């Protein structure tokens, strides 16, 4: 039966090809050639696809952090591991990051496994998008390898009871807590904030955030006027914003990506409506293209930020690091890759204090992490992991877009300029 021959031939070739690849130690060039004493850390970020830009930004920051660790930068002290070259407690050994592309959750996991099994990394970090982090860290957990996450904000990641998962950055609930703390502060100063509305995109990011925003709002006695979810990118937000305006909220909380953000502003302007305050979970509103697309219309938006360049006003270290980054890449750091940057330093620090490269040692190092506020570019009070692996001091600041820049406006003691609330109407700008 002739067709059968083809079955066998095709599959046979496939098999042969696979076996050959195997024999060669994998289709890619074999395990990245390592210097004898380099310590390999795996980094899994989206390097292709729609999140490629973000991944590229994190890569630049992480690579800079690696350089700072490996070479002596006494001028950046007291930044973690800046002063010495390499890891002092390990005899000055250097670290090396092996990069992999986290394209989707299944691939992220496969890549994590590859990094662990073939590249023999001692620890992993990544992946920005919570869905990718979820599966990649699963691989690390099953294999008993430490996984450090710096940028994913889904609260569920540290609610899984994992032993090897650590997160330095804040999660959505912590950010949202900030919102309400700020509202409370503002009410004390005489602002009227009683009713709120939510406009959110509905993937993992938006949906989780919206849920937390709503729960917290209700708990603290605010009234929910409207809650509009949409699929990003939206063809139009007319319907949603019309309903929101009808609800007359004192503050509109928005979670959206770039195109949503731009469309929100443009639609609001067309409607001639501006809510007293537009408070957002960064994302689309903090990407450089946002201001390029909206210009002055996009001002007065208040966003949470885990980091802002304006912190440099009170913390010179921030400016020093940013200047170094800027000299290499001709742009400022942003709050996403600032977290990635800090994440790598934290991991390196843990490896250093753990005294060795075995998984247990690194785990020990992470569990005993206690980085003081002065040693980082973040506005946190420190880095110390609780029982779930979450940095208990992770927090953020609120920035407002004023004069075309993101200025820290809350907490009031870190603020560089007074907050503008309510936002001025369209015809008064």
């Amino acid at each position: 039966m002739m067709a059968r021959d083809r079955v066998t031939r095709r599959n046979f070739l496939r098999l042969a090809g696979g076996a050959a690849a195997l024999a060669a130690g994998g289709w890619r060039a074999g395990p990245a050639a390592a210097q004898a004493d380099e310590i390999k850390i795996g980094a899994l970020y989206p390097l292709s696809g729609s999140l490629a830009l973000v991944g590229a930004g994190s890569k630049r920051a992480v690579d800079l952090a690696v350089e700072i660790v490996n070479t002596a930068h006494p001028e950046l002290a007291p930044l973690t591991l800046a002063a010495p070259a390499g890891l002092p407690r390990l005899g000055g050994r250097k670290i090396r990051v092996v990069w992999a592309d986290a394209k989707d959750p299944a691939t992220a996991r496969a890549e994590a496994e590859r990094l662990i099994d073939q590249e023999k990394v001692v620890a992993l970090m990544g992946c920005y998008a919570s869905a990718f982090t979820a599966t990649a860290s699963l691989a690390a957990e099953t294999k008993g390898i430490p996984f450090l996450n710096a940028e994913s904000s889904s609260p569920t990641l540290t609610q899984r009871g994992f032993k090897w998962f650590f997160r330095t950055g804040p999660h959505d609930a912590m950010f949202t807590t900030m919102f309400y703390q700020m509202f409370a502060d503002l009410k004390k100063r005489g602002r009227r904030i009683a009713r709120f509305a939510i406009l959110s995109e509905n993937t993992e990011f938006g949906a989780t955030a919206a849920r937390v925003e709503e729960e917290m709002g209700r708990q603290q006695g605010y009234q929910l006027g409207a809650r509009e979810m949409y699929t990003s990118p939206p063809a139009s937000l007319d319907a949603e914003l019309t309903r929101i305006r009808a609800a007359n909220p004192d503050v509109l909380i928005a979670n959206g990506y770039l195109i949503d953000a731009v469309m929100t502003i443009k639609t609001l302007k067309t409607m001639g409506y501006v809510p007293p305050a537009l408070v957002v979970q960064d994302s689309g509103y903090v990407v450089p293209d946002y201001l390029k697309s909206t210009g002055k219309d996009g001002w007065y938006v208040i966003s949470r930020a885990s980091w802002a360049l304006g912190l440099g006003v009170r913390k010179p270290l921030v400016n020093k690091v940013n200047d170094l980054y800027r000299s290499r890449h001709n742009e400022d750091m942003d709050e996403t890759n600032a977290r990635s940057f800090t994440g790598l330093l934290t991991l390196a620090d843990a490896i250093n204090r753990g005294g060795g490269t075995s998984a247990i040692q690194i785990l020990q190092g992470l569990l005993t992490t206690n980085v003081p506020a002065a040693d980082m570019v973040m506005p946190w009070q420190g880095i110390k992991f609780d029982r779930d692996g979450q940095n208990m001091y992770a927090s953020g600041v609120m920035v407002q877009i004023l004069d075309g820049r993101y200025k820290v406006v809350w907490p009031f003691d870190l603020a560089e300029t007074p907050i503008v609330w309510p936002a001025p109407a369209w015809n008064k700008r």
Partner: protein
Amino acid sequence: MTPRAAAVWGALVLLPAVVHNAYFLNGMILVFIYGTAAQAWNLLGGYGGQLSFGHVVFFGTGAYTSTLLLSMAGVSPWIGMWAGAALATLLSFVVGYPTFRLRRHYFALATLALAEMVRILVLNWPLAGAAVGLYLPLRLMNRPWAMLWNTKPPYYLLSLALFAVACGLVLVTDRTRLGLYLRTIDQDEDAAAALGISGRRYKLLAMGLSAALTALAGTLFAQYVLYIDPSTVLDPSRSVLFAIMALLGGRGTVVGPAAGAAFLTLLSQYAGGALGGLGRGYDYVLYGLAIMVVAVYEPRGLVGVLERLRPRPRPLPGAPAGAAAPSSVPSPDGALPPASATRAPGDPQPPLLEVAGLSKRFGGLEALRDVTLTVRRGEIVGVLGPNGAGKSTLFDCVTGFLAPSRGAVVLRRNGDRRILTGRAPFWIAQQGLARTFQLIRVFPGLTALENLLAGQEHDGEPLLSVFRASPPAVFEQAGTLLRLTGLEAVRDTPAGQLSYGQQKLLGLAMALVRRPRLALLDEPVAGVNLTVIERLKDHIRAQHAQGVTFLIIEHNIEVLMELADRLYFLAEGRVITDGPPRAIQRNEEVLSLYYGR
């Protein structure tokens, strides 16, 4: 199974014992899971010709159903996966049933719309985890009843098994009547209906199997990846992926989708960084180009290309051993009236077909006006008339291709009356009516033999029997007809490559394979040379001797004179007159209407 095939499958089974590279095993697991979905797509889109662009909806249904049942009700995925498959099948019918009667674009779009709707709904459904998705309960790790393991080999073997089932199903389809019928429906659904093949029935069968299989793949995917959300298991680009795997590999073949799945998955895993890096998507540009090239030049994909390079004869659809020996006269089907070789003239025969007051309007045009005619059992009745008289319209109304505006068509069968008016063509055909078309309709992609096999008796054919090859009696019958019509030499040639005359003969033979009660022939000798005319006449006479009644439209007066017992003359949609051929020939009205004298 050939020894070589067994060796390959055997090697695949033993692979995990030898190869421990987890990354490679991961790739193979995904090849098997995606390959299953690609084969499932192939069943519907390759054989059935219904291209689904929303197939991921079944994948996601399987994944979500079994996962929800497991995490919420502790139901084992071994059971949950069947629930997912059932739900997916149901969903597929919701979309398929209404759109199958429309052109394929509608089905393609309807599946796309369905997939998007389901995705948006699930995205906003908190119970299903909405956007956050669902984690599989890790606390059940390493419990086989929960289909969760810590290592790759169990997943590998399970997905290999599913893939084998999928390939097996496609193989069975390819070699048995199901594949034959699907391909007739794909190539010419109306001609298939005229043979008694219900397009809807088999498309739904293919659809259901396809959806169920894809759902099973979805469950397995969930169990393996341990986390699902709408962006991974309900993502539209995955629908495209399944389709591309089948299309590029070769749709409508057994090996094509398997090859396509292996190629694309392994390529993406090992070389994806090179091509797809930087978000630039160069790989998809190539896929797009490849699809266009394949569409234009070689719709059978990679397999088609290879076949051209090294042509092999298609295996006969399940030909039983020694089927070639022809018997002199095929034994009649039990329900047919006994063959009467001679018929005394003047014997009153019971009426077989009664057409009463049939009228058909198309907007302002009245194509048929109050047509009444009767065909008695055992007769050969002719219908003639000038062009535009409504003859073919009459046939279409009788055989169900058009619904009459008024009037009735009744078939008398073994004493009882069956009302044919307004029924579906395939049903009418199954009552024992066969027809040919004015413009020849054969299945161009099927061989002459396969065309004849398609014409076998479909009345009362049990659904499950289509998973077997055609019975030997049918092969015999087909073989005989091939000889009688002189087409034996082109038995394995695709009908599309036959000459006009050969196709005419084939068309006639197809209609008569199953020995219908009544054969309606629309201009059977039009456009062919004298030799072929003689052959056709002989064939009609031979069948008539076996008890087939004929109603024949013809312009060729000599042929009608020779063959027909009675003639009806139609003009401007009305029956002008009827009677024996000699009388019609001399009728004044006929002469003036026909020849303008």
